């Protein structure tokens, strides 16, 4: 391994664990885009809510770390459910195909989720203040571990393990269970799914719950990894996840995951070579390039013009 500088390997590992958290976020986006064909702008706030749920539990009860993650998952599930009821359900007044795919419905849900995200973010600022809240020291997952030539922290492994477990669990859910089957059916053709007796409303809620749980888990993991939790923390990862979804071809979950990993690695490389301030530029650059040169995404199949 002496032909590669260990420093770059280390950056690669950091990028991969960053990419994994983007992937967790991107899956939520992709699932919800898949079933409703709409963008959920409140997804970043789910991530923040997950982080705060974990933080509140940690400061109140000092539980083991996995309890904090479960708290985040529970809050994520609840937030996903309420989000769907509040910001998406009221705009699905009609169920015919034309109105499900109509621009009015897409834009009103986009704006309503945006409004909900403003309310949640500002609400959190009232409750917790806009300053960064630091995580108690013993919960930080950054104990260094030496692996060959590189030094990683425990957080890299935990993020990697939790993300991998959740991704595999999701694949199991989607491919092997009835709920997953109905999610795939609705995402394929909502009207057709309704005709064969699938409760589309329930399926859409399930999708929001599953997607939001993943987002919330990403929030608490990143919060513990960096040790800083604040109300506006969800915005940048939300955009990154969105970029990953577009790069992956909008409806492809494996594509979104691979794109998220590429994005994470590219960002950590950009931080190395340029500066951390410009690393966000990479994501936006990728987004524009993908949109122009690969309009259907790097991994997406041909998709109708939306």
């Amino acid at each position, binding site marked *: 391994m002496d032909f590669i500088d260990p420093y770059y390997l280390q950056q690669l590992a950091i990028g991969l664990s960053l990419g994994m958290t983007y992937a967790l976020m991107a899956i939520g986006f992709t699932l919800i885009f898949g079933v409703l064909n709409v963008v959920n702008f409140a997804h970043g706030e789910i991530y923040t809510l997950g982080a705060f749920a974990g933080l509140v539990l940690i400061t109140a009860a000092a539980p083991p770390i996995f309890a904090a993650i479960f708290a985040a998952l529970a809050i994520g599930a609840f937030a996903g459910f309420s989000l769907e009821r509040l910001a998406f359900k009221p705009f699905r007044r009609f169920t015919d195909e034309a109105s499900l795919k109509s621009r009015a419905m*897409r834009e009103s849900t986009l704006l309503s989720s945006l409004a909900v995200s403003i309310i949640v973010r500002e609400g959190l600022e009232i409750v917790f203040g806009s300053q960064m809240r630091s995580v108690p020291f013993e919960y930080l997952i950054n104990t260094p571990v030496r692996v060959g030539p590189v030094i990683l922290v425990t957080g890299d492994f935990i993020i990697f393990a939790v993300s991998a477990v959740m991704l595999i669990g999701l694949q199991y859910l989607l491919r092997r269970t009835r709920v997953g089957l109905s999610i795939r059916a609705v995402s394929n053709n909502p009207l057709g799914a309704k005709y064969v007796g699938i409760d589309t409303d329930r399926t859409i809620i399930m999708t929001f719950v599953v997607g939001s749980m993943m987002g919330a888990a990403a929030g608490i993991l990143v919060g513990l990894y960096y040790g800083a939790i604040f109300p506006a923390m969800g915005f940048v990862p939300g955009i990154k996840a969105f970029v990953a979804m577009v790069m992956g071809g909008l409806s492809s979950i494996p594509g979104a995951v691979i794109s998220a990993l590429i994005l994470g690695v590219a960002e950590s490389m950009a931080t190395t070579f340029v500066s951390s301030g*410009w690393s966000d530029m990479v994501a*936006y650059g990728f987004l524009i390039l993908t949109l122009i040169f690969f309009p259907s995404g790097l991994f997406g199949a041909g998709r109708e013009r939306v």
Partner: protein
Amino acid sequence: MNESRSPTRLIVPVLVLLMVFAALPAVLASFDRGYFYQIANLSLIFVLLAASLHLVTGVAGLLHLGHAAFYGVGAYTAALLATKAGLGFTFTLPLSGLVAALIAFLVALPTMRLVSIYFAVATLAIGQMLYLVMLNWVDFTKGPNGIIVTKGLNLFGFDLSGRLGTYYTVAAVVTLCVIAIGRLSHSYYGNALRSIREDDQCADAMGVRTVRLKMEVFTLSAFFAGVAGSLWAHMTGYISPGDFKFSESILILAMIVVGGLGSLPGAIIGALLLILLPEGLRGMGDFRNVMVGVVMFLSILFLPRGLLGEVSALKLVRQQLNAAWRRTDNGIGIGWR
């Protein structure tokens, strides 16, 4: 045609102009507190921003999520020209509009063929990229420290930097721009843009040059945003990247959504509401930012067409300003040519 020029037709615009240029300054002068002038100027600037976004998102139906960045480009152009080249407001006002329009044009060249959500995402990315440039190009833009603009408002050698002078300058520029935007959006040109919004493939088939029109309207709206930016830079005397974040783009978008997409009077009402409501609720402290979200959410839920929807806005404009409308035989106006 003469009956349409009757004086009753012009009541609303004359009243609005009287409000803006006589009643409001009188009220401001009687209170004589700098804070109220700031609020009045801020509302006027956001009226212009909302009106310019109305052109892209309301009339042409292109969801634009990076409008604040072009506002920022205008503000930075004005500030940098004023501090580095020593140019006065007379030159920075048009130049900042032109620079914003130029950047918008360059950006539009590759992205304007994207449709619907892809376009929205692209504008979001472009807005964020411009914001990152403002934030990180420290040598040029001074980064997060911002720029202090020492030159006040000064038009053709007249010093207008007093409180009333500033107000009148801002009000005059904003009024002129809003009238221009109004003429555009209620003309044949605006109708072509509306046809793109409704069905761009169909409009294309009918001979409307959709891509070119989209580029034109995107550039134009960036021009007006740039003008608003230079007003802001000279008015406050201090700009920093934080003024041009994504949340500002969303605020402007919320204004036109609350007011009614596609309706210029609605955009103006929405801008006034979302600037003045949080200020009026200052007593509620932190809750005022939540109120922006709540107002936006409730208006989408209960007033999907906005406070003053497009149809009623068009009717209003046609009734009140129809002096220049070409009438068909059955008495229905089509629009300015």
